[in-house]
C-alpha cells in the first residue's frame, strides 16, 4: 500500500478502498510507538461496527491498545495471519500487517478522514 494514497484518523489508523472493500491497519508511527507487537485480537466477520467503536485489540510488550473503526461498516474479512505472526504489523504496517476489511461503509465518513498530507501535518503536532 502506498501511504500517500491512504486516508487517516487521529488515532493513527489508516483505511483505503480496494476492490470494493475498505482495508484498515495502523500507521508506521503507531506501530513504532507500541513496540514489539505480541498479540492481536480480531473482530468477528459479519459484525457491524459504528465509527469509533473498538474493532481490534493490539497487545505489545509495552501496552494494550484498541484499534477503532475509522468509519461505520460491517467486518468483511480479518487478517488471520496476525494470530500467528502479530509482528507483521511492526514489519509491514501498510502492507501485510493490515488488520481488517470493512464493507457497506459510510462513504460520507470515509471522505471526511484526513489524507496523507493532513496526517503528516497532524503527526507534527503530536510528536
Amino acid at each position, binding site marked *: 500500500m502506498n501511504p500517500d494514497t491512504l486516508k487517516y484518523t487521529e488515532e493513527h489508523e489508516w483505511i483505503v478502498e480496494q476492490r470494493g472493500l475498505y482495508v484498515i491497519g495502523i500507521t508506521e508511527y503507531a506501530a513504532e510507538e507500541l513496540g514489539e507487537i505480541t*498479540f492481536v*485480537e480480531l473482530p*468477528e466477520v459479519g459484525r457491524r461496527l459504528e465509527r469509533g467503536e473498538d474493532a481490534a485489540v493490539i*497487545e505489545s510488550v509495552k*501496552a*494494550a491498545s*484498541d484499534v477503532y473503526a475509522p468509519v461505520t461498516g460491517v467486518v468483511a474479512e480479518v487478517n488471520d495471519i496476525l494470530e500467528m505472526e502479530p509482528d507483521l504489523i511492526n514489519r509491514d504496517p501498510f502492507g501485510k500487517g493490515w488488520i481488517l476489511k470493512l464493507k457497506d461503509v459510510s462513504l460520507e465518513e470515509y471522505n471526511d478522514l484526513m489524507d496523507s498530507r493532513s496526517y503528516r501535518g497532524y503527526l507534527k503536532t503530536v510528536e
Partner: protein
Amino acid sequence: MNWTPATLAEQREMLSAAGAASIDAFFEMIPEALRLRQWDLPEGLSEFSLRRKLEALAGKNTVEYVSFLGGGYYDHYIPAAVDALAGRSEFYTAYTPYQPESAQGTLQAIYEYQSVVSRLMDMECANASLYDGGTAVFEAASMACRITGRRKVLTHASLHPVWRRMLETHLAGSPIEVADGDAPTGNDIACVIAQNPAFTGDLRDLSSLANACHDCGALLVVSVNPVSLGMVKTPGAMGADIAIAEGQSLGLPLGFGGPYLGILAARKAYIRKMPGRIAAATTDAAGRRGYVLTLQAREQHIRREKALSNICSNQALCALRALIHLCLLGKTGLEATARACFSKAEYLKSRLDFVELLNEGPTFNEFAVRLPREADGVIAALRGKGFLPGLPLAAMGRGGPNDLLIAVTEKRTREELDVFAEALREACHD
C-alpha cells in the same frame, strides 16, 4: 501525604452514576443485619488486658468435635510441613510481590501451583488463584460470556447454593443473566455451571452434558472437590471448558469463611479470556530459567476499565499451601487420600441402615440422608456427645427438615465411625 476522601460533590456524582439516592440506599443490597450501625470503638487496652480478652474469646471455640460437617469445606489432615514451609517469612510476610527482580521465589511458587492445578484438573492452563470457590463460579461465568459473546448462564442443580447466591450477588448490575437449568436450552446460553460431586454428594459423569453444551455453542464449567480427583474422572476428561474449585481441602484449615482458595483452570485456547494473574517461565539475559507474570495486558493495571476482570491480586499464601500440600501427597498420596475418604464414607453408609439414603447413584466423601426426626434436634443431641453430625439441608434450601448432609474424611477412624453411627441411631429414636 494527606488522605483525601471523596468530597460531597464527588460523592453525589458517584451516587447519581450508580443510581442511588444516598450512601445508605447504595448499601441496601447488604442485608441489614450485616450493616455497620456505628463506629464507636471501645477504649484502648494494655497488651496484657487485650491478650486476656482475646484468649477468653478464642477459648469459646470448641475444636475437639469429631466433625462430619462438609458442604464444600472439609476436615482434612494438614501435614505439619505445610505450616512450616508456608510460614517461612520469605513467603509469609510478603504482600503478593510480583516484581521478577525481587520475587523469584513467589513467582516460581505460583508457576508450580498453576502447573499442579492444570494437571489435577486435566486442563491446559490455570491462573494464579482467586479468592474462593464462590468467586471462581462468578469469574468462570463471566469468562464464558466473554468467550461466547453471550450473556446468559445456567446453573445446574448440583451447584453449591451458597456459591449460586454469590454468583447472583456478583452479577447485580451486570448485563449477565443467570437462571437455573440442567442443560442448555438454546443458542443464547454462554455456559452451564455444574458441580461434581454435586452439593448433595452425587457423582456424575458430565461428558454428555459437555457434548450437549458444545452442540449449541455453550461452554461447560465444572466445579469439583479437588481431593475427589484422586479417583474421580477429571473435568478435562469429561470435556469441560473451564474447571473451578474451592481449594480449602488442599492444606487450608477450616475457618469462619476463610481465607480459602479459588481455583480456576481452562483450555489453552481461552487463556486470554481467563481472569487474574498468570505466572510464566522464561530465561533471563544470561540464559537462566526465571519466572515473570505474563499476559498482563488483560489486567486492570494495564487495561483499566477495559480489563477482563476486577481481580487484580491472587490468594498467594493459600495457593502456596495448596501447592505444598499436593506436593507432599504426590500422585499416589492424593489417590490414597481420595480412596480413604470414599471407603470410610461407604463404611459409614453401611452402618446407617436406620436412615433413608437420598443419593441414588455413587457418592464420594459425602452423602445425604433423611432422618426419622428433624435434623436440628439430632444435631443438638449429638453435639452434646462431641459430634458435629453434618449440615442440615433445610438451612441451605436444599431439602426437608429431616435431611442431613454427612461428610467423611480420611481423618475419621473406624472407632469414631462406629461410635457416631450408634450415637446417631440413639438420637434418631429418642
